């Protein structure tokens, strides 16, 4: 049998069979994987239990009752709707803004480089701190944004404290924090595109809009997909901005998955429902990731001329 010989630092010799070597080499990754999977499967088990910390005597497997209860619980459907709406709106707007800013900063110059660094500052702010800052800026008594709103005739604009404008307010904070993330990814993508197609288009006098939609955008799509995937996964799991600004209110306006699961665990100590909510959230993010990664791979193959 073929074997590989290794010498240890002490000089002693031991042999690992060639067949076992790949398994030995992948052992650290396997251990990390186990470390990740243990909490995951614990949550899966909890989600199939009637488990409230305040009623330990009633803990038992209820085999999917937590999930079945969601079907008749209007609160759950509201959570699903708000989470998807929040993720959809923030990612779309951030993508449009990020792309717009990246296009404006595409040409390398001292000013553009300086601006692109300055625009990254919100990304370095902790989202919860950003939310508290915006909470102060939107305070109806002394907030600068409330003052500016009153100048344009929006007296008594209630920002996060009104169900009509709460979503808009937290979306604004999200955009302020995360647009730079998309901007910097797309800027890197734009600056790495080959110049020949653009030079050829310029020689032929192709209109700018045609260049953008037929050359720039298709070549940038892998970058756009990557940025969208990261932001979508993050924003569907949003917690800090919403919790710091409204705790999920007013009413049930902003009870997204993470906020609802957090309140279920830490306030209601309803471990079973909280775990079930998080497993559903995981399923949604898993499905979204799959869709995006499949599309990304398809695009890559097309770029290589394999599709």
């Amino acid at each position, binding site marked *: 049998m073929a074997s590989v010989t290794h010498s240890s630092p002490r000089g002693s010799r031991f042999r690992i069979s060639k067949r076992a070597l790949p398994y030995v080499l992948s052992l650290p990754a396997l251990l990390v994987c186990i470390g990740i999977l243990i909490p995951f499967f614990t949550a899966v088990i909890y989600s199939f239990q009637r488990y409230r*910390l*305040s009623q330990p005597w009633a803990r038992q497997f209820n085999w999917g009752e937590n999930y079945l209860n969601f079907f008749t619980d209007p609160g759950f459907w509201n959570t699903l709707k708000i989470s998807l709406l929040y993720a959809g709106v923030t990612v779309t707007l951030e993508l449009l803004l990020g792309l717009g800013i990246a296009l404006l900063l595409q040409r390398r110059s001292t000013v553009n480089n300086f601006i692109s660094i300055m625009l990254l500052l919100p990304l370095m702010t902790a989202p919860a701190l950003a939310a508290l800052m915006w909470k102060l800026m939107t305070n109806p*008594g002394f907030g600068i944004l409330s003052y500016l709103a009153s100048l344009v005739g929006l007296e008594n604009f*209630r920002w996060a*404290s009104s*169900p009509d404008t709460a979503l808009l307010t937290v979306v604004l904070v999200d955009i302020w924090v995360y647009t730079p993330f998309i901007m910097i990814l797309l800027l890197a993508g734009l600056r790495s595109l080959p110049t020949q197609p653009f030079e050829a288009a310029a020689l032929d006098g192709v209109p700018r809009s045609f260049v953008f939609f037929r050359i720039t955008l298709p070549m940038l799509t892998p970058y756009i997909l990557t940025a969208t995937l990261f932001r979508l996964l993050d924003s569907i799991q949003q917690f800090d901005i919403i919790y710091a600004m*409204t705790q999920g*209110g007013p009413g049930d306006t902003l009870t997204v998955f993470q906020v609802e699961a957090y*309140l279920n665990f830490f306030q*209601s100590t309803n471990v079973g429902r909280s775990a079930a909510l998080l497993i559903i959230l995981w399923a949604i993010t898993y499905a979204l990731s799959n869709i995006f990664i499949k599309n990304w791979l398809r695009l890559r193959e097309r770029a290589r001329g394999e599709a």
Partner: protein
Amino acid sequence: MYDKEKDLIGAFLRGEVDRRGLLKGLGAAGLTAGTAGTLFNMMSTQALAADFDWKAHSGKSLKLLLNKHPYADAMIANLQAFKDLTGIEVTYDVFPEDVYFDKVTAALSSSSSEYDAFMTGAYMTWTYGPAGWITDLNEWIKDPAKTNPQYGWDDFLPGVKASCAWNGQPGGALGSEDAKQWCIPWGYEQNNLSYNQEMFEKVGASVPKNLDELVATAAKLNKDVGGGVYGIGVRGSRSWATIHPGFLSGYANFGQKDLNVSEDGKLSAAMNTAESKAFHAKWVQMIQESGPKDWSTYTWYQVGTDLGAGASAMIYDADILGYFMNGGDNKMAGKLAYAPFAANPEAKAPTPNIWIWSLAMSNFAKDKDATWYFLQWASGLEHAIFGATKMDFVNPVRASVWKDEIFRERLNKSYPGYVEMHDVSAPGAKIHFTPQPLFFDLTTEWAATLQKMVAKEVPVDEGLDRLVESIDRQLAEAGLG
């Protein structure tokens, strides 16, 4: 040296001389305040140690989990006295309230033995107790070998003491014969009116006596004070904390309940009676007309600081919030006054719901006997007097502190109406919620419903009917309804 003075302090500690006599005597003897204080502490320690072996656990160590609060500050300021008395070393972690209870839940639910004792509210013990995270303290309170004979368990205000005791049965009465003492009351808050005297005088408003007058007075203040000042501050965040202060105090004054308990112990929501709907309608109207513009984000912090900064004319909230806003470097310091409040014009007295900062013992404590030594010292009379007279340890939970003339005089001098407010409403002060494991689910949803009503998303009647339906469903799912 100082023999006469020691005799005088000894007489005071035996209850033979009152505090006024003590201070007069020490002053006549020409003692400076510093010397008198040192002597007093020394004699207090000796008196405490007289009939009880405080050194039984000397050399042991304890760790506390504390919320950032004046009660914790007062305890930390006096902690050396405990260490000297017992020889027990004490360390502590202090967390801000925003994250404090999450930290407690995380520590207890993981059966961590890091903390031996911690600050809690009585409502929280309705989760911690049945979960087996905290200890029934009756075992120590009733054991003369472990409890100082001078501890004075009967000195605690009855309604407050009973509110910390529950038999663990959903819907079971607080303080019943079979109740377990999950925590020891430390300091408590009644919910009454704190108001800005200057603003009331400016618009010629008088202190409201019932809910209708409260709604009307708040509207008048809102309209006439000017400068962007709003009429009344109450909490509005999407949290249980919105329900328990002024709101539930007024609600209970109309004889209304959160839950009905049937003879067979089943629970059902009780918020959609005609009286409850009428109360809710007036409360909602009051906030819409005279509350802060961003009411739905208001916690105790915003309610208090607005009063202190002169942004609101009055609050119907914790009395100690009004107390703290009348001192320090608050803009309105010295301009606030206090009044008891009975929302129901036909009620004989106020029925404030109360919040009790209490001390509980972790079931995972490394040494429960040593921990009990700390608990009985921290909730003892000597520390209560120290906190009440030298720090901001209000409201005390011991009747004898409220009888202390120096304490009453201090309050009367700088906090007009505070003592009277307390005395009038103390007999009806207790927890008016039904103890049960879904407390936080119920109250959070109640707060969310109030937010919807104030935002005119749902009419009051319909909102309460939906709330009752939802709570009944949750109670049934949890096997309680």
